[in-house]
């Protein structure tokens, strides 16, 4: 057994600071284990969200040594334990306490996206016939565990604070899943352009890099959606009309 030190951000919306805790570490431990151990030993009231401890629920998002990660899936042997490991809450969201942030904005955004609307069933018993090849993409998008790490790193939200205008990568993924679902019949392309401002995304791919579900957010969700928007709103005929039409 050896010991390691963790600098955990303690505080709330009025401010806070990193506090050092030293605790025993053993083989196979993940960051969340260390946090729990500290909580039980010396900081009973340290706030942290978690549920599954297996990378399935997306509750335990944090910034570990500055990198957005799931605490339950970050093994200590992937970190340099010779110096303190910093554990901070997601910075793109307001603080509630310690490692817990207010992510309620995400839940409000989702409501603004048109819900799933099925097309007419294929069979008399009210069911659909769909091939596996046709659902690969929507299934990839539906792996999302709503950890909001992609929202945390997207500079449009993190640095430019465009929360009121831009829905962020998570909800572009969500919209892509709906648009690519072979049973869905609704159309969200106009909303993407005018209401959800997909144009703010300049394809930096930071979101894709942090996604713990390895969803290729930019290539498989955002770019295809952007193409749909372009096809509709900037097709050659319309462009011509724009050039020659009245200003």
């Amino acid at each position, binding site marked *: 057994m050896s010991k390691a030190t963790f600098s955990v951000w303690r505080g709330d919306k009025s401010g806070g600071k990193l506090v050092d805790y030293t605790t025993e570490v053993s083989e196979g431990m993940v960051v969340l284990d260390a946090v729990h151990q500290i909580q039980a030993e010396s900081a*009973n009231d340290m706030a942290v969200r978690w549920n599954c401890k297996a990378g399935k629920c997306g509750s335990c998002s944090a910034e570990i040594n500055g990198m957005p990660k799931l605490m339950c899936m970050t093994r200590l042997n992937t970190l340099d334990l010779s110096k303190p490991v910093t554990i901070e809450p997601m910075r793109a969201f307001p603080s509630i306490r310690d490692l817990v942030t207010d992510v309620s904005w995400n839940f409000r955004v989702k409501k603004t996206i048109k819900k799933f609307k099925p097309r007419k069933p294929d069979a008399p018993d009210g069911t659909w016939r769909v091939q596996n090849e046709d659902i690969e993409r929507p299934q990839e998008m539906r792996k999302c565990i709503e950890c909001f790490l992609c929202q945390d790193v997207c500079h449009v939200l993190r640095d430019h604070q465009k929360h009121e205008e831009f829905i962020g990568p998570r909800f572009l993924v969500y919209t892509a899943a709906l648009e690519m679902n072979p049973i869905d019949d609704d159309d969200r392309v106009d909303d993407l352009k005018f209401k959800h401002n997909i144009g703010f995304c300049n394809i930096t791919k930071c979101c894709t890099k942090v996604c713990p579900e390895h969803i290729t957010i930019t290539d498989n969700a955002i770019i295809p959606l952007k193409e749909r928007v372009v096809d509709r709103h900037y097709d050659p005929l319309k462009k011509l009309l724009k050039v020659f039409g009245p200003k």
Partner: protein
Amino acid sequence: MAEFQTHEHDVIVIGAGGAGLRAAIEASSAGVSVGLICKSLLGKAHTVMAEGGMAAAMANVDDRDSWKVHFADTMRGGQYLNNWRMAELHAQQAPDRVRELEAWGAVFDRTKDGKILQRNFGGHRYPRLAHVGDRTGLEMIRTLQDHGIHQGITVYMEHTVAGLLKDGNRVSGAIGYDREKGVLRVFRAKAVVLATGGVGRAFKITSNSWEYTGDGHSLAYEAGADLVDMEFVQFHPTGMVWPPSVRGILVTEGVRGEGGVLRNKDGKRFMFDDIPDNYKPQTADNPEEGWRYTQGDKSARRPPELLTRDHVARCINREVKAGRGSPHGGVFLDIAWIKEKISNAPEHIKKLPSMYHQFKQLADLDITTTPMEVGPTTHYIMGGVKVDGETQMSTVPGLFAAGEVAGGLHGANRLGGNSLSDLLVFGKLAGEHAAKYAKANGAGQVHQDQVDAAAKALLAPFERGANAESPYKVQYDLQDNMQALVGIVRKEDEMLKALDVIEGLKKRAGTVGVAGNREYNPGWHTAFDLGNLLTCAEAIARAAVARKESRGGHFREDFPNKDEKGFGTFNHVIRKGPDGKMQLVQVPLTPMPQHLKDAIEQEKK
């Protein structure tokens, strides 16, 4: 007197897993106002972790399947202690509930002809589990969540319900607090649906999350409702055993459904040595036949690795105790071996992507090349709030229960995949009947003395302060106690000792204190959970002591056989007696109608 805020709804649903969401959707579509309360954020409930699939006799893969076969499988799995009416409704309605999920946006894996694909699972005679890879629970909770948010349901996320309020016999609401600020809240309601899940956190090794502290079981008990079958806890045979910090995390049965086999340290497939007589006609007696079964050969019988969970868990336990286990006290689960059989084995195995990543990331192990080490983990409680099979109402008027917190459907042992379908079928029924009850009965009174008493109990740990005992210590001691003394193999003297320990822990729970304030304070939350955990632990232990036979999830070393004439004829019911002490009574099974008996006989062949 403590300050609190009041909210009013026709129906409140406590819990936002599959059962709670489905209940809330149903109640709100019946036109009543619904409040949905949950301890975590929306979409994070335990249901999200379910992997293998949901059982429904849709007969998409094998047209011999029907609700009658599903019914018979469920009853046999539950060793005939099940509430047969629930088992009947469940088998009949599950297919519609699954199809409805698709109509709400779920994207299931498909058969070649484009229908919803179904996979094999332990105890199910035919391929029956509709699934999405090994993340079926995520698909289910997300679909219900995304449908539900457009239904006008008021959601109270990160709120804990701490007590039910009553007006005479009936419920009239609930009291709780929001976890973020610690504000106390009173919910007035005409009907209440409990959908709080299970109690795995009473044990040390478990696949369950922190939420599983038996809150609903305990809320119902305190409100005077009956609990049934509490001795039946399911130990899943395959949890991770190494490294220590992931001990207990589930390895889906889907691994075995896709061809994974269990071996001891000598490389022997020990499951072939111990096939119970009543399963012999349907179980393969050689590896070759077992393999063909997993590959969809309809003439083949299933491999013994897919026998019911209680049996497989005990066989693993036996291998380990006999010194034939793996280095870290489990046995080997090997799916990599299928490369001997098929050329594209790694792709086939990656049909279980979460399992692949789970082992890769948490154990540095590649399951496409190396066997996993697995051992039993506390997984599910069959026992729960006793409900009426048709309406899901408990013995307290206006109080309903659905999902894992309800008892009856699974009897002495639950089949894999029967929980997700349970959530949908009975979530819907509970929502429907709660709305009906609310419309027919109006509101009851909220009595201030009950509110004050609940608030006082909730805030007491702050008064005792940081120098009092830590709630975490009491929790750990309880977990050790249950794991060691009321676990997978049980004995009278050990369980009596466990009950003594529980008495002591109850006293200590009354003395724990916490530091800090009410805002997002996990120490406080843990202090509150203790009472629920202890109530459930006591109920489990008492019922287990009283059942002097072995059946399903309940195995007694001192009574290793089933006693059909005696214990096979009644359920154990636990309730709070007039003296405030826990009472246990035997309630005879209700006779099964002939057509259901016939369905069972038919399948015994």
